[in-house]
C-alpha cells in the first residue's frame, strides 16, 4: 500500500522557506497555501484582532493592482484566493487552473509583500468585520465559545480574549495606520511555508517559488506560545449566555488542558477522546445522548487551541431544545466524569484505533485533507513521514496508555459549564 510520504517533494529553498508538494489526480486543478509567521498573538494592542483585519485589507489590492483590478485579474482566470489568520500564522489559500499557476503564485506573493492598503478598502473590510461580529452577538455557538475562553483562562493568557461586544469596540478603534504599521513590523518572510497539491509537480513549483518569494525581508518575529495561566477562581456551577427567541441551546462543558501535541501521550489522549466524543455516530456521547435518549442532534468532544503549542481546552459540546438542555447537560457531564474516572474499554480502543487509521487514508484522498497535512508538516517542521509515524504510534498504543493519558490530563476540578440560548 502506498504511503503518504511517497511522491511527496520536500525542499528547503534558501531565502524562501520550506516547500512541500504532493500531487493528486485532479486534472487541471492546483491548490496551494502560503503561510508566514504572524498571527493574533503578535498583536497585544488590539486583543489579537488587528492581524486578521490587516490580512483581509491586504487581500483587497496590491501596489500594482487596485481592488477592482485585482478582482478582475483573479476572477477572469478563475483564481480563488482567501486569507486566514490564526494565533500564530497568516495563510493565503489559493486554487487555480493549472495553466494559471504562475500568475496565481505571483498574485498571492504580491498581496503578501506589496499590499496597497487603500483607505476605502480598509473601511470596507472593517465594516464587514463589524457586521459579522454583530451577527455573532446572536449566535448561540459563538457566544458559548467565547464565554468558555474568557472563563477558563487567566486574563494574562491571550486565549482569554474579550467578549464580542468588546471586540466590536476594539475593531471600531483600529485605523488604517495601525494596519499598515502592523504589516510593516510583522509580516515578512517569517518562516515561510508553501505547500501544494493537485495537478502540480514539485520541481516546477520550486522554481516559481524562487522567482516569486525570494528576497522578502524577514521580520524576525517568533512564535508566542503561552502555556498554563488558567483562571484561578472556579466560576459558578453554570454560566448562562441569554439570547432571545432561540430554539436550540448550545452547551459546552470545558476543561483547560496543557499537553505537547507531538508526544505519544497526546496520541493516546486523542484516541481516548475519539471513543468518548469523536465525530461519527459510534462515540459514547452520540450513541448514548443522541441515539439512546434522543436528546440532541449532535454532541462531540474535541481539543481546541493546542495546535500551535499553546495551552488549550477540551470542549464537550451539545445542542439541545430549551426544554431538554438541563437533562442533556447532566447526562453529558455524567458521561464525562465516568470517562475521566474509568477511561475507555478494550473494545472501544480497537474500534476507534481502526477508525483513525482508516479515516486517515480517506481524508488524504482529497486535496483539502492533503493540504492540511502538508501544512502541519511544514509549519511544525515535522518529518515528511509524519503521517506514517503517527499511525505507527496509534497502532502501538495500549489501553493502559490511553487511560493513563485521560486520567493525567483531564482535571475535573477545573471543569466549567456554559449554556447559550433562550433559557
Amino acid at each position, binding site marked *: *500500500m*502506498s504511503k503518504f510520504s511517497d511522491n511527496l517533494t520536500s525542499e528547503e529553498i534558501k531565502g524562501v522557506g520550506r516547500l512541500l508538494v504532493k500531487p*493528486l*489526480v*485532479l*486534472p*487541471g*486543478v492546483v491548490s496551494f497555501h502560503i503561510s508566514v509567521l504572524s498571527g493574533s498573538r503578535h498583536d497585544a494592542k488590539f486583543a489579537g484582532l488587528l492581524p486578521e483585519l490587516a490580512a483581509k485589507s491586504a487581500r483587497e489590492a496590491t501596489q500594482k493592482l487596485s*481592488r*477592482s483590478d485585482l*478582482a*478582475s485579474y483573479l*476572477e*477572469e*482566470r*478563475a483564481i480563488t484566493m482567501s486569507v486566514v489568520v490564526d494565533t500564530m500564522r497568516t495563510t493565503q489559500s489559493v*486554487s487555480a*487552473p493549472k495553466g494559471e499557476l504562475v500568475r496565481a503564485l505571483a498574485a498571492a506573493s504580491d498581496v503578501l509583500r506589496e499590499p496597497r492598503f487603500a483607505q*476605502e478598502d480598509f*473601511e*470596507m473590510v472593517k*465594516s*464587514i468585520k463589524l*457586521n*459579522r461580529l*454583530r*451577527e455573532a452577538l*446572536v*449566535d448561540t455557538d459563538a457566544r458559548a465559545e467565547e464565554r468558555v475562553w474568557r472563563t477558563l483562562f487567566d486574563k494574562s493568557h491571550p486565549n482569554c480574549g474579550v467578549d464580542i461586544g468588546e471586540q466590536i469596540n476594539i475593531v471600531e478603534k483600529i485605523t488604517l495606520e495601525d494596519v499598515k504599521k502592523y504589516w510593516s513590523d510583522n509580516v515578512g518572510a517569517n518562516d515561510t511555508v508553501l505547500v501544494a497539491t493537485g495537478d502540480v509537480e514539485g520541481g516546477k513549483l520550486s522554481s516559481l517559488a524562487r522567482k516569486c518569494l525570494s528576497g522578502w525581508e524577514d521580520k524576525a518575529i517568533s512564535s508566542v506560545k503561552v502555556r498554563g495561566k488558567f483562571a484561578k477562581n472556579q466560576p459558578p456551577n453554570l454560566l448562562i449566555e441569554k439570547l432571545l*427567541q*432561540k*430554539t*436550540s441551546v448550545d452547551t459546552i462543558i470545558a476543561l483547560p488542558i496543557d499537553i505537547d501535541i507531538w508526544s505519544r501521550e497526546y496520541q493516546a489522549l486523542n484516541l481516548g477522546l475519539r471513543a468518548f466524543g469523536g465525530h*461519527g*455516530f*459510534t462515540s459514547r456521547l452520540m450513541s448514548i445522548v*443522541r*441515539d439512546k435518549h*434522543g*436528546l*440532541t*442532534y449532535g454532541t462531540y468532544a474535541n481539543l481546541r487551541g493546542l495546535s500551535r503549542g499553546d495551552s488549550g481546552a477540551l470542549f464537550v459540546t451539545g*445542542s*439541545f*431544545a430549551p426544554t*431538554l438542555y438541563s437533562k442533556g447537560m447532566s447526562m453529558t457531564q455524567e458521561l464525562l466524569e465516568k470517562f475521566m474516572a474509568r477511561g475507555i474499554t478494550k473494545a472501544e480502543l480497537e*474500534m476507534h484505533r*481502526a*477508525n483513525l487509521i*482508516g*479515516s*486517515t*487514508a*480517506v*481524508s*488524504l*484522498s*482529497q*486535496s483539502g485533507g492533503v493540504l492540511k497535512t502538508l501544512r502541519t508538516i511544514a509549519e511544525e517542521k515535522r518529518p515528511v513521514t509524519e503521517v506514517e509515524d503517527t499511525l505507527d504510534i496509534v497502532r502501538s498504543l495500549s489501553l493502559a496508555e490511553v487511560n493513563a493519558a485521560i486520567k493525567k490530563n483531564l482535571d475535573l476540578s477545573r471543569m466549567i459549564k456554559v449554556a447559550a*440560548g433562550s433559557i
Partner: protein
Amino acid sequence: MGELGGVVEYVHKRNDLRVLVWEDHSTPTVALNVTYLVGARNEGFGHTGATHMLEHLLFKGSRNFDNKKGKSISAALERVGAFMNATTSFDRTNYYEVVPTAERELPFRVEADRMRGALLRATDKEAEMPVVRNEFEISENEPHEAVAKALYATMFQNHPYGAYVIGLRSDVENVTVERLRQFYDDFYWPNNAYLVIVGDISVKESLELTHKHFGKIKPSHAEIPPMYTKEPPQEGPRRTVVRRSGEVPIILLGQRANHFLHADTPALELLSGVLGRGRSSRFYRALVVPKLCSQVTVGTDIFHDAGMLVVNTTLQKDIEIGKVEKIILDELEKIKREGVSESEVNRVLTQLKFDMEKLRDGTFGRAALLNEFIAMGDWKLYFKYLELLEEVTAEKVKHVANLYLGEDNRTTAIFIPK
C-alpha cells in the same frame, strides 16, 4: 450499457438498478453512493420532512445491521475508518461511504441490506424524533435559515418545495412510523435508485459485488408513485417578513425559474454569476463596496421541478432595507435593459468551468457530483454541461434576464431584527 467521461453505466437485468462505475486508482479508497429518487418533492402536508426522518431511521437498523443487537451500520463502517453519512434534498436521498480499498465490499453489504431490509421500529422513531426536531431547532436559530424557509414557503405555495427539506415542526413531531413505512415501501426499490461506485476498484469487480449483494433484491411490485404537482405560474410579486430577535437585516429576493433540465438553466447560471459572483460582480460593487451590505451572493437554486434565482444579502446594521432593495431592483432593471458584456460572460464562464473541474476532487467528490446530477434528472449532464455553458452568449443572458427577472415573478423575504 453506456459510457461517458470515464463513467460506465449498467442496468441490472433483474431489478433495473442503475449502476454507474467511475474507475480511478489514484488513491487507495473506494466511494459508494446510493441515490434514491425520492426527496421533499414527494411529500405532502401531514408528512413533510418524512424523507429526511426516514433517512435518520435507516441508520437504526436493518436485517443484518441492527443497533439493538449491537451491530449497527455506523459501527460496522466507522470500524474501518469509513467517511459516511446520508443527506436528503428536495429531489433525492443519498447514502454514501468512502472506505479504504481493502474494505470495499462492506458498503455494498450495508447498502443492499438498507435498501429493502430496514426494520423501521416504532421505538426507533420515537427515539429519533427529538433528534430530528433538534436539527430543525438548530436551523431555526439561524436568521438566514429562517428567512430562507419563508422565501420557499411564499414562492412555492402548492409544490412541496415550499415546506423545505426539514419539513414543518408539527409534521416532524407527529408523523407515524406507519406513514414512514409506507414511504419506504413506495420509494426504496432498486428500480428507483442509482448505485454509484467510484475509485480504486475495477469495473468487473464493481459489477460482481453489485450482483452479489443487490442482485437478489426484487424490483417494486407497484409503479413508483409519480410526482405530478406543479406550482402554478406566479401572477404578481409576493413578500414575506420574518421579525425576530437579531442584529442585522437580511434580504432574500427570489425570481422564479424553470426546472434544471430546461434549456434556459445554463444562461441563468451565467446571469447569476454576472450579478453576484465574486468581487467583480455587479451586486458586490453596488452593495458591499459602498458599505451597505456585508455580503451578497446570487445563486441558482434550480431543482428537478422548478427553481429560482436568489439574491441573498446581509445588510449592514442600521442601513435602511428599502434603500438596499431599491438598488437590487435597479440593477435587475439595468441588466434587463442593457444586457451584459462579453467580458462578463467570459469571466463567469471561466469560473464555472473551473468549478466543474474542482468537483472531481477525490473519490467522494466524484460520487457526490454524480449524485447531484442524477437528482436533477440526468447524470450525463455533468459532462455535457460545459458545452451548454459555452454556447451561452451575452444576448442569451439578456434574453433570460428579461424572461425571468420580472416583478410578477418575484418573491422577497426579509428578516427584520427586533
